[in-house]
């Protein structure tokens, strides 16, 4: 049985783990939802450059007083750090598509074992549009998926084949859930980290994608000081 965690813990554990992936100077785009929290957990000594697809390169935290002339992709106000730049959407997506962004962290409806991502629409529900997500997964060097391991009905989100409309084909580099870290290595999904109290068997029960086990599985980074 997988441990039961409250939603707050799920979200923060995922965000915290992802924040450990970056090197100083990496350019990082954060999607809405859990990905937004990642910026709260960047380790001391590491400074990453946050990019927002609506035109900020070098975004800082939320300001004390809102100024709506500076917003992020999710529509929340942000600050600019010294050394930031403002660009048009045309240039912003040029940077994204052109491979000039190191990481994008996005949520998911489903990720499948072929590294396909479905994240923008559940058919039958109102259609929201793909926004910038398809460009991000196509152009950004590393696509990290931040997601709860199963959906609210308890169904697997890491699946054999995405059934929802795709955001991109073969685009995912890494999946971080509250229970595990998995990476696509040479087109294969590989489990490399497990959260405390989670076994490979537990995980297989909630994962319909086939996955391999890394030679050495470690305890999910960032959990040690929870």
């Amino acid at each position: 049985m997988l441990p039961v965690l409250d939603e707050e813990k799920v979200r923060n554990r995922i965000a915290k783990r992802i924040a450990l992936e970056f090197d100083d100077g990496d350019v990082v785009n954060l999607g809405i939802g859990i990905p937004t929290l990642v910026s709260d957990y960047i380790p001391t000594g590491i400074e990453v450059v946050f990019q927002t697809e609506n035109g900020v390169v070098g975004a800082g935290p939320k300001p004390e007083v809102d100024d709506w002339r500076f917003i992020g992709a999710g529509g929340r106000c942000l600050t600019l750090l010294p050394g930031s730049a403002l660009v048009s959407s045309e240039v912003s997506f040029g940077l994204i598509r052109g491979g000039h962004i190191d990481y994008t962290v996005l949520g998911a409806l489903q990720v499948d074992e072929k590294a396909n991502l479905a994240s923008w629409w559940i058919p039958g529900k109102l259609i929201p549009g793909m926004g910038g997500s398809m460009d991000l997964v196509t152009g950004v060097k590393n696509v990290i998926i931040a997601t709860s391991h199963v959906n609210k009905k308890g169904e697997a989100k890491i699946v054999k084949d995405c059934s929802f409309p795709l955001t991109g084909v073969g685009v995912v580099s890494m999946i971080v859930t509250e229970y595990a870290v998995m990476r696509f290595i040479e087109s294969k999904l590989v489990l490399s980290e497990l959260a405390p109290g989670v076994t490979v068997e537990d995980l297989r029960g909630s994962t319909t994608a086939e996955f391999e086990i890394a030679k050495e599985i470690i305890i999910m980074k960032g959990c040690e000081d929870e």
Partner: protein
Amino acid sequence: MAKKRIKPVLTAKDAVKCISSGATIMVGGFNYGGIPYSLIKALVESEVNDLTLISNDTAYEDVGQGSLVKNGQVKKVIASHIGLNRATQNLYNEHKIDLELIPQGTFVEKIRAGGFGLGGFLTPTGIGTEAQNGKQLIDVGGREYILELPMVADVSLIRAYKADQNGNLIYFGTNRNFNPTMATAGKIVIAEVDDIVVSGEINPNDVVTPGILIDYLVLKEDTYYASRT
């Protein structure tokens, strides 16, 4: 009709008179930011309808171009994201409007291609997804791309920070977004601005949109969203 060297400054109401029912319009803005609020307000108060609206998102139900949709003046929306505007989503669901969804990077690039005289471009974005439906795929060097075609409008409504009398524009913060690109792709281009200064006051090195693209200037009239523009 050639554009004037010194740009006429109009009220929002007069400026939008060049938009007829059935026209295709582009409207700048991303979420709350950089929307030509006064021009949209004037359009909402006009009798114009059957519009095709090209806008990245349709803002919110009662905000900016969102209210144009909610008000039933739009027959077709071309956007990348409509998830913040329940009215757009519902009207589409009820088959009361047409909808074309385009990935955001492709959306802005199609406008640039239209404004800059290209016949189209090849993008890797959307390969293997619904975004490629009905589009020609072209193989270059063993990789497949979608051929995307240019997009233009009868009238572009854009939002900038300052204009000089020649219509040169600079932008502020994240209000820039789609505005400079849309300024290239409208047969008529109307710029709503915070301020109009005499020619020479904007440093030529800082100009983002050259004035030769602009037809009319409108000083912002809407105070409700003042803090958001």
